[in-house]
């Protein structure tokens, strides 16, 4: 039985073909195989959310999915979200409101916040502070106490709703 296999996937819009060990998690593959170190490895058992990435449009724990499971998938990391400008307003709001200090949790936080805002747009709603807290409940920040993070996401949620 093979403990490694070939996979083909799309990462941040670019085709990738690699030979990976079956045991390699998605986040380790992204960081060590592709050099995309924006996704962080915190707890490695699904608690902290620092490894949050998007697979086929849905946020997942990069540490609780194997790279081999992503054969044929479309993966987006914070580098892709950032380069496309999709989260530029969230990034600016985080900076403006000091919603990060060490920054370790920020890529996962932005990915989870963007997921909420995409859903809100689809449902034509503006998330409340409670809804923001609940959606970000799977992302640990050990610096800020969350208040500024919720402020930043709320400001962007309102700006996006008002601007449309």
């Amino acid at each position, binding site marked *: 039985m*093979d403990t490694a296999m070939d996979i083909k996937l799309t990462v941040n819009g670019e085709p990738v073909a690699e030979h990976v*060990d079956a*045991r390699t998690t998605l986040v380790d593959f992204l960081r060590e195989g592709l050099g995309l170190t924006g996704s962080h490895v915190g707890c*490695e058992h699904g608690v902290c959310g620092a490894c*949050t990435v998007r697979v086929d449009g849905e946020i997942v*724990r990069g540490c*609780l999915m194997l790279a*081999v499971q992503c054969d044929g998938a479309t993966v987006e990391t914070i580098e892709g979200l950032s380069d496309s400008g999709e989260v530029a307003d969230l990034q600016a709001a985080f900076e403006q409101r000091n919603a990060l200090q060490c920054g370790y949790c920020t890529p996962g936080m932005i990915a989870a916040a963007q997921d909420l805002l995409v859903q809100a747009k689809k449902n034509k709603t503006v998330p409340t502070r409670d809804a923001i807290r609940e959606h970000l*409940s799977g992302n640990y920040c050990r610096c800020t106490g969350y208040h500024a993070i919720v402020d930043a996401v709320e400001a962007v949620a309102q700006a996006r709703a008002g601007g449309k």
Partner: protein
Amino acid sequence: MKPAPFAYQKARTLKEAVALLAKHKDDARLLAGGQSLIATLNMRLSAPDLLIDINGIKGLDGIARKGKFVEIGALARHAQVEHSDIVAKHAPLIARAMPHIGHPAIRNRGTFGGSVAFADPAAELPACVLALGGEIAIAGPRGTRTVKADAFFKGLFETALRPQEMVTAVRVPAADRNTRTGFAELARRHGDYAIVGLAATARAAGKGLADVRLAYFGVGDTPVRAKKSEAMLAKGDIDGAVATLDLDPNDDVQATAAVKKHLAGVLLRRVAAQLMEAA
């Protein structure tokens, strides 16, 4: 930490998955949502030789009303169940529990069948299926069989599943206008495993309740029925139900047994109020 090496094989059909399980038995693990399995692999609490990925098997993720039952396919993702109109309408207890399961990123991957088969004693869904008096559909090398929830959860992470078998679906009785449900849990952080939780069902009977089923989680090796309290609640005696709670939790990393017992009573009062709403 990183997982120990293992081989990986995608099963395209149920038959193929069962054949692989029959061949490799305890050396293999089924990979469904992976939200518990991959964590245990990462921590090397588990080191199988082979992962059999069942995510590509078609037809195992349906949610449908079938006669008197709601059938939820083993591969239905938590997020899919959470947003299902059929579940909201016909299985309201499960709809109530869904937002408490993990976090959005985890609910996008985790599966209904995986949660039931893994049988974590602090997980919400095994307790819900027990409270509902549901049944678990199982496929194995000798065909299919069905096991009632009351007989499915046998011990700590131990179920009636044999090594060559897998869960294919879970069926719960569809709610009617007399169905009452209640759900509450206490966790350190929203979405974390509960310190104590309670899933409950009952039937409205006149001004009171009948057929009360209370299934606690986080207080034993399996989800646990509190049968004495069920009888008290059916008599409308909430104080009596709390006083007769015969749970025997152990201390764990989250709370002592004494705290858990106290919290179980607190939850019982909250859930009793939910059951009696509009009863």
